[in-house]
């Protein structure tokens, strides 16, 4: 990086952020720290949704614009299971399983016949998202659903400086970190993970090496979709489920992935952290334009690093 640009970034971004941090801590340390924690926990949720999106995109170049619908589907199925069995953990499992199953079906019956036709695949996912949203509205209506998680994760935890903090949001942070680690282990330490990474780098070579690319694709799509369904239950517990959440998380994962770099799981984590923190600080300190902050970050990244922070040139 040329010297000028390094100074440009330090002066243009680093100094204002540092000043703001000092001011925030002096002015109201509790608010500042709570907001930072809120930002991180929201980022954890965004990461859960976006990691599946970026995984699928990285391997298959499939911009799955029905990813948000899978989130909502997992959430509703999870709710039904949780309501019938009374077990939140079963609900989480059902959320993952249902979305993963739908993902698997989609990959094997639709997308595998459109190999390499990226735009058509994307158009199909748009059509599916419109239809899924309407079918879910048809079945579940416009009511608001909330999960009933075990008491022990739904109380408050005393923390230094911020006094008390919702336990569930900390649990969310832990779940997200665990998923991140698991995903890393899966991609870096297992045979399938190795194939997926190889596929991200060069699909043609992977196939030529004698790997059954179709089954690798199917597994990846199922995991990616399953992560969306999983996030549906976990996120639905933190907030609530209602029509419209699909678009919200679809957009969140789009922005996270654009910022973090498309196809990179680590990039998704960084992107999610940036977006989540920016959104929460926006809500606390400039509520009117909180949503716009997110997009300012995106525009900055696009202007100076079009491939995303950790993305590679296509």
């Amino acid at each position, binding site marked *: 990086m040329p010297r000028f640009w390094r100074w440009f970034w330090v002066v243009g971004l680093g100094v204002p952020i540092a000043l703001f941090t000092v001011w925030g801590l002096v002015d109201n340390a509790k608010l500042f720290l709570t907001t930072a924690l809120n930002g991180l926990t929201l980022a954890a949720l965004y990461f859960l949704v976006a990691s599946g999106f970026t995984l699928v995109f990285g391997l298959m*170049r499939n911009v799955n614009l029905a990813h948000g619908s899978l989130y909502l589907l997992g959430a509703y199925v999870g709710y039904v299971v949780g309501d019938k069995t009374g077990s939140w953990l079963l609900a989480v499992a059902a959320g993952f399983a249902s979305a993963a199953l739908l993902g698997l079906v989609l990959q094997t019956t639709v997308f595998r016949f459109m190999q*390499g036709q990226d735009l058509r695949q994307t158009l199909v996912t748009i059509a*599916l998202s*419109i239809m899924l949203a309407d079918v879910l509205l048809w079945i579940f209506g416009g009511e608001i659903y909330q999960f009933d998680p075990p008491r022990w994760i739904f109380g408050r935890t005393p923390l230094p400086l911020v006094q008390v903090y919702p336990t569930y949001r900390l649990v969310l942070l832990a779940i997200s970190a665990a998923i991140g680690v698991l995903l890393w282990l899966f991609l870096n330490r297992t045979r399938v993970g190795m194939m997926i990474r190889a596929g991200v780098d060069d699909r043609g070579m992977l196939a030529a090496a004698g790997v059954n690319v179709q089954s690798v694709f199917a597994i990846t799509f199922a995991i990616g979709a399953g992560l969306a369904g999983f996030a549906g239950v976990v996120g639905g517990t933190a907030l609530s489920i209602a029509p419209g959440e699909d678009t919200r998380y679809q957009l969140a994962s789009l922005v996270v992935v654009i910022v973090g770099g498309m196809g990179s799981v680590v990039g998704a984590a960084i992107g999610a952290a940036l977006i989540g923190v920016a959104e929460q600080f926006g809500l606390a300190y400039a509520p009117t334009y909180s949503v716009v902050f997110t997009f300012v970050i995106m525009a900055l990244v696009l202007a100076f690093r079009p491939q995303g922070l950790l993305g590679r040139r296509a």
Partner: protein
Amino acid sequence: MSASEWRKAMNAGAGRTAWPRTAAAAPAPSRAARWRGRGAASADVRDETRWLRWIGGRVRARHVLVLLAVLAYPLLAPPFFTFQIGGQALALGLIALSLTFLAGYGGMVSLAQMTVAGIAGYMYAIFATSGTDISLGWPWWLAVFLALAIATVCGILIGWFSVRTEGIYTIMITLAIGVAFFYLVQQNYSVFNGFQGFQSVKTPRVLGVELRDPVPFYYLALFWALAGYFAVKYLLRAPFGVALQGIRDNPRRMAALGFNVTAHRVAAYAVAGLIAAVGGILMVWYNGLVSPGSVGTSWLINILIIAVLGGMRHPIGPFIGAIVFVLLQNFAVDLVDRERFNLLIGAIFLIIVLFSPDGLLGWWAGGAVRLRAVSARGRLGRRVETGEA
């Protein structure tokens, strides 16, 4: 992946339907040969009639029929059909045309074309007269000029942002930009009047004609739709359009030939921005209002649906798509429950994408090819019977 691969992806299945490519992109040899042949046969034809011949060579009976039909339409249809079906379809078709131009010929699928149209609408509402104090009340022609200029500049900016990455990313980036604009107008009260937007936006009266009355509005929209259509057709044959299509098919080769790929793409966004801006002004006159809902996610996607529905292989596609879309929007309620309108439009979109990537035009072309094959076989059969062969 490169744009060329992506383009291939878009073209997959084209061989089956065999839709004739535009002359510029791949000059149809048969037509060119016929042209030369005719020219040689009548070499003594004078210069003055060359234009007539040119028109005669291109204009077919079906073109004249369509033109007569759209011109006579308001005389036959009730005002509701003139305004809400005809006028709205033409205005929406114009916005979708800008997407067809970008996607079909530039290889860049932008979901932000409705945003550009919305910017034009908002700017018109701000500079001209509406029911809100924010509006400046300037003369309508000045407001129109400013709105078109600002929207086109915004279109160029969006293009500049999105051409920095390639191919399939465009759709994500433009979607994100479009939604950012939606949130901005919903939250900003000092300029965009927030959630309410601008209500009762005044439509100009020109020479005593209220432009929002069904018949004047229809002809106004028709004029601009035809202007947009012919502008796009002209551009595609002009050097710029040919270069653009070359860039769509193989940007690297075009760069090697000395073409500035980025500049051509941004210029395409400028053209598309202007077309969408005109459509946006028509829409704000049509609705008499502009609100965050006019630039929300559903409208961004609807423009894509219209363009894909009609077919992106010919500039007439978006207008056909718009007519079908508007008819569905108005009369789906009489067929299925209006509550399930989204399911219906989603299913139709899915069917089109799955079975006819070239939209309704693809079906038309496929049907025509089949028909020709059938009739040719029939003729052959007769010839055999009569012993001519």
